[in-house]
């Protein structure tokens, strides 16, 4: 592939900025600029997706990126990723424990009765997918009334601050693999500092998938679900909530809450196999987690985690078990960048293609004419 420097088009490129912004504001007098709080609250799932794919938990900046990108999630995540690349790394947290999450949703497909109970939280799982026409002309008064009424009618709750994991019970019964003590001590792979050169450790796979593009993860996980793989998952637990972020206080050294992140976490139980270090068979597990409320992403990641573990152990038998195939194709910024670069001028390379085609055709003509 060859490239050539070209001149010209500067005025047109500058014009695109104006046109792009014009389309954002073309409601004119009748329009109201979107404020970042509105985006964060009323488009919370879209917003969470951008935070997750941007890889940095900056709610206001994610809203700004969405506003600037006019709703294009890939572009918004790209803007957020570009922002983070300008920032110095100050520190990392100690190992945080998701049992400390302040939950807003918690379900299990494995057991009806789980310690602490199942709580559906905010979900559309049981909704009819029919348009709610009343939202077409929702007034500010109605909007506020819904908020007020919900809070006053919701039952008082005497619930704990955190809940045990469903997997803990299975682990106590010896039905799960024992944690690998050596792996637990290992420093995790930092995908923001090191390129993925295969083979990579599982921590690289988890970090890559945590900021992967949702649709890409889903597509490859779906291939596994449909038959190009055999994970056959059961969701042991899916939880959504807020994880307190802790750092040592600079003076006292005591772990101090510096904020919290909304996240989704999923553990899947897959088909059992003989444990390498144990005589009896145990279930296998997959894990998914991401910033924001994004269940499809967390479940897809958990399935792919299990598939990749199988591929890393015994060699891949299908695409979803191949770390290189999965991890190099799920990043939205990478794939979008490669895809959209095809829009850029390829005048020289295409000229070369034309020359070669003409030469080939001439040769064919010469051959036909003897």
């Amino acid at each position, binding site marked *: 592939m060859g490239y050539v420097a070209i001149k010209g088009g500067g005025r047109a490129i500058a014009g695109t900025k104006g046109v792009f912004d014009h389309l954002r504001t073309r409601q004119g007098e009748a329009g109201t600029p979107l404020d970042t709080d509105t985006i964060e609250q009323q488009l919370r799932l879209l917003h969470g997706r951008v935070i*997750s794919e941007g890889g*940095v*938990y*900056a709610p206001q900046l994610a809203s700004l990126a969405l506003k600037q990108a006019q709703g294009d999630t890939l572009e918004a995540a790209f803007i957020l990723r570009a922002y*983070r690349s300008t920032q*110095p*790394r*100050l*520190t*990392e*947290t100690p*190992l*945080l424990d998701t049992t400390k999450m*302040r939950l807003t949703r*918690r379900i299990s497909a494995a057991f*009806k*009765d789980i310690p602490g109970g*199942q*709580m559906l939280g905010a979900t559309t799982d049981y909704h009819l997918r029919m348009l709610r026409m009343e939202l077409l002309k929702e007034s500010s008064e109605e909007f506020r009334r819904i908020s007020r009424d919900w809070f006053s009618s*919701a*039952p*008082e*709750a005497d*619930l704990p601050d955190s809940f045990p*994991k469903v997997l803990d019970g299975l682990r106590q019964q010896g039905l799960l693999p024992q*944690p*690998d003590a050596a*792996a*637990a001590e*290992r420093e*995790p*792979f*930092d*995908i*923001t500092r090191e390129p993925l050169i295969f083979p990579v450790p*599982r921590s690289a796979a988890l*970090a890559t998938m*945590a900021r992967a593009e949702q649709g890409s993860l889903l597509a490859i996980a779906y291939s596994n679900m449909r038959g190009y793989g055999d994970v056959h998952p059961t969701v042991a637990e899916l939880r959504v*909530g*807020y994880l307190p*972020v802790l*750092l040592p*206080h*600079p*003076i*006292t050294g005591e*772990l*101090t809450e*510096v*904020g*919290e*992140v909304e*996240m989704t976490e999923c553990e899947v139980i897959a088909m059992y196999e003989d444990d390498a270090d144990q005589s009896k068979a145990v279930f296998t*597990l*997959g*894990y998914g*987690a*991401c*910033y924001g409320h994004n269940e499809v992403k967390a479940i897809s990641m958990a399935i792919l*985690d299990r598939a990749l573990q199988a591929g890393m152990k015994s060699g891949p038998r299908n695409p979803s078990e191949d770390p290189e195939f999965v991890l190099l194709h799920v990043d939205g910024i990478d794939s979008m960048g490669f895809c959209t670069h095809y829009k850029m001028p390829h005048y020289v390379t295409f000229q070369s293609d034309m020359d070669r085609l003409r030469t080939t055709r001439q040769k064919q003509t010469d051959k036909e004419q003897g």
Partner: protein
Amino acid sequence: MVERSQWCSALQALPEEQILSLAKEMLSVWQVRPKVIPQAGLGMLKLHDSALCEPFYLGEFPLASAWIEVETADGTLAEGAAQIMSARTELAEALALCDAVLAARLPGWQQVAELLAAGVAIRARIATERKRILSSTQVDFSLLDDVGGEDA
């Protein structure tokens, strides 16, 4: 009063302007020197996955930090520090000042304690809202048992 490890998060629940204006008031009569240059950047969030207990990085978050020494009009010295999930060092410095005032009970600490109490109340409201989300959607499987149904 709540523990020092909760001061920063409780005060952050308040509108920034309240913290900044209180800090400005104190700064007008006291001297504040940085112990460490205030910084803004990113922190990396490290989790252990709850399936196989292996550590990994979930992602990054903005972080601003400040560590200051404050000298009051009567020469009393105290130190305070703050780290917040924000890119605003100005706010981190104001919170570090609040940290110093509360820790050393410097003059005016009651004002900061009042703000702290207000922040704690806001956080309690948020916690209540989350628990109501859970309680209003808690699944009661016994209803299915009553009608002899079986959940799949």
